[in-house]
């Protein structure tokens, strides 16, 4: 269908997917996007039902004029004559249409920059700001607030409003993770639509009338489903804010790093907000192949362990503080001289695919039994998966574990008990909870453990290596559906802690003699050549949203 946006003629499809992906007539807002024109909006959201209540997307438009014979009226130069939409009782004034809910028609002209459109936007913003408290200095949304942005882009400096502002409740406890400031709310109902239509928990609504309209939970403090924090992202203003992030840091200080959530097998794409080595928040990053624009509250708030004070920071050899070169040399010598079959490796499906690949190389050379540990929990219909490991498929594809995790664990336990296994390498798991008790571990010559936080196994280690959290290194995860995603480094690891792949590749070189790559890019590309499922992949070609791999 041919339409004209700001004088530019373009072809747009007749239908476009709506929030559920069903084809619906293309709207003026969507058509404008084809022309690279962004029409300002508050209530409209790609992944929510259209409400059309904020009026911010009002635009002036015109349609081809039709004669009495139902044929288009032509100008003198032969082009179709356009009738601008005007008020029926006031033909001199244009009548705008909300671009988010108005379908286009053939030959339509959209004037997204015209003086009339500008005037409409100014008027809408002025109305929205009538009762707005303008408390940006204490508002957590400041810096990423659509009301601020549009006021600068499309608003005006002054207001004709001189009366006292209506005051509404502030600091309302909407739920365990959400604070509501009713004065800041523009009543766009994005939060209501999200919780009803996406999260499936009809917990929010609007109460009271006129200027006293307020958002309310069905019962005070009962907006408590596992997806409530998405409404904080959705809220175009500072009405809904996160209790966890409240007054913690101004958003313009946050460095944004593309990463992946590690709380379950779904592996939602996230953005880590950090400042000077401290993680302040996780936010979902739009990825239609995995999580859409959403993520669960549990995963979002599961970042505090990265900055815990009791993180493992020192390389310990038999309880004594050591350094990386000494420990690597000692471990390499031990593994290189180990008879075949005397070493077992228990890896974690919380490690990156590259690290698991290196461990598998080590295991192949040493003829070692390998396994990983399953982590089952509860899933839901939306995003949360029952598999709580972020990289179970990575462990399977690299050959560290079988389809069923824990298959080799009893064999390893037997091996230690009868003395054939003398060295155990454990990465990121507390094996004392999985059938390898302290009495068994005491029989080993060497227990080489790499972990992030202290546990019963790290306490027994002869060689303890401090590892890095996913936010402190680069790598890839393969989620439950076989989506391979890469993640970037946001913060530095504490103390002597080091990314596992960095010393693993040294270890692999010392033990197997095969030279590895010193960069994550090279390592990934090498892995892609050797692991059939990753054939043809390259680090640089894996985009921000990842690629599908066969599982």
């Amino acid at each position, binding site marked *: 269908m041919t339409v004209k946006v700001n004088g530019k003629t373009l072809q747009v499809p007749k239908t476009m997917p709506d929030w559920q992906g069903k084809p619906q007539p293309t709207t003026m807002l969507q058509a404008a996007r084809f022309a690279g024109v962004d029409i300002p909006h508050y209530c409209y959201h790609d992944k929510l039902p259209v409400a059309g209540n904020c009026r911010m997307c009002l635009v002036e438009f015109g349609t081809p004029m039709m004669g009495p014979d139902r044929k288009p009226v032509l100008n003198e130069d032969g082009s179709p004559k356009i009738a601008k939409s005007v008020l029926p009782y006031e033909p001199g004034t244009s009548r705008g249409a909300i671009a988010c809910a108005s379908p286009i028609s053939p030959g339509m002209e959209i004037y997204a920059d015209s003086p009339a459109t500008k005037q409409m936007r100014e008027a809408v913003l002025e109305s929205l700001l009538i009762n707005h*408290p303008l408390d*940006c*200095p*204490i508002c957590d949304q*400041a810096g990423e607030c659509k009301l601020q942005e549009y006021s600068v882009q499309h608003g005006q400096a002054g207001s004709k409003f001189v009366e*006292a*502002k*209506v*005051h*509404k*409740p*502030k*600091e309302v406890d909407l739920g365990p993770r959400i604070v509501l400031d*009713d004065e800041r709310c523009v009543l766009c109902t994005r939060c209501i639509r999200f919780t009803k239509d996406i999260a499936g928990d009809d917990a929010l609504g609007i109460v009271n009338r006129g200027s*006293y309209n*307020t958002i309310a939970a069905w019962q005070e403090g009962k907006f408590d489903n596992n997806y409530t924090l998405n409404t904080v992202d959705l809220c175009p203003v500072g009405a809904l804010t996160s*209790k*966890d*992030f*409240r*007054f*913690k*840091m*101004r958003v*313009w*200080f946050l460095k944004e790093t593309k990463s992946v959530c590690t709380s379950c097998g779904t592996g939602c794409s996230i953005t880590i907000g950090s400042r000077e080595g401290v993680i302040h928040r996780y936010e979902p990053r739009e990825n239609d192949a995995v999580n859409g624009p959403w993520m669960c509250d549990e995963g979002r708030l599961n970042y505090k362990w990265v900055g815990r004070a009791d993180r493992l920071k020192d390389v310990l050899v038999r309880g004594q503080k050591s350094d990386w070169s000494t420990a690597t040399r000692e471990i390499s010598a031990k593994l290189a001289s180990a008879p075949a079959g005397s070493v077992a490796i228990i890896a974690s499906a919380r490690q990156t695919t590259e690290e698991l690949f290196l461990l598998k190389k080590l295991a192949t050379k040493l003829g070692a039994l390998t396994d990983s540990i399953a982590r089952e929990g509860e899933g839901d219909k939306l995003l949360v998966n029952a598999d709580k490991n972020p990289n179970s498929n990575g462990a399977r594809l690299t050959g560290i574990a079988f389809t069923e995790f824990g298959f080799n664990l009893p064999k390893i336990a037997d091996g230690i008990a009868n003395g054939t296994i003398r060295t155990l390498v454990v990465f990121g798991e507390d094996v004392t909870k999985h059938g390898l008790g302290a009495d068994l571990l005491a029989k080993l010559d060497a227990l080489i453990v790499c972990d992030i936080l202290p546990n019963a196994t790290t306490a027994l280690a002869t060689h303890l290596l401090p590892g890095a959290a996913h936010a402190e290194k680069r790598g890839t995860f393969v989620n439950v559906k076989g989506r391979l995603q890469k993640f970037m480094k946001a913060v530095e690891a504490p103390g002597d802690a080091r990314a596992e792949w960095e010393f693993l590749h040294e270890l692999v070189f010392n033990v197997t003699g095969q030279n590895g790559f010193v960069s994550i890019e090279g390592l990934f590309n090498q892995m892609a050549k050797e692991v059939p499922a990753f054939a043809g992949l390259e680090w640089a070609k894996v985009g921000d949203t990842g690629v599908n791999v066969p599982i």
Partner: protein
Amino acid sequence: MSTKVVDRSPLTFYESTYLPALLGGLKVTTRHAWNTLVKGKTVTMEYPEQKWVVPEGYRGAPYLVKDQEGATKCVSCQLCEFVCPPKAIRITPPGPNGQKADRTNAEKMPQEFEINMLRCIFCGLCQEVCPEEAIFLQKDYSLTGESRAEMIYNKEKLLKLGGTHAGIQKWKHKLEEAKEQEVFPVATE
């Protein structure tokens, strides 16, 4: 450009003795000696016992001010920290469980506010950017300390040095406006 030739007439006999120049100089010296020693009009100061009072608008050290009720005006918006060119300002926000603001009806105040006076370049951008009229460049120009740590002024010190600035109390005004409302939706308890 035209060249102007300066007339350099030869010195007279009287002038060539240098006496008029000497006498002229002696006259100036005598006038100053008379003014300072006899009349007591000094032109220098016995710094640091005596200190110069700087004129209005002088950009001295930035300090935090309190309002007329003795409450902290700063709400920890961190705009000064952001704008500060030498990164001399460091604010610790209160966080979700921090101390409540001591100002009527304001929700937020800084947990800690530090200015490194060794870094500060007295540019005044912090004062200009402050939406709360909470920080002002005042008249102190000679800051000394015995260590670097001593030159990092904390919130307590800055508030003590800053004194009071009686401006509009916008947060209190909001509360009064809300209380006058027919329906008062803010929980009063």
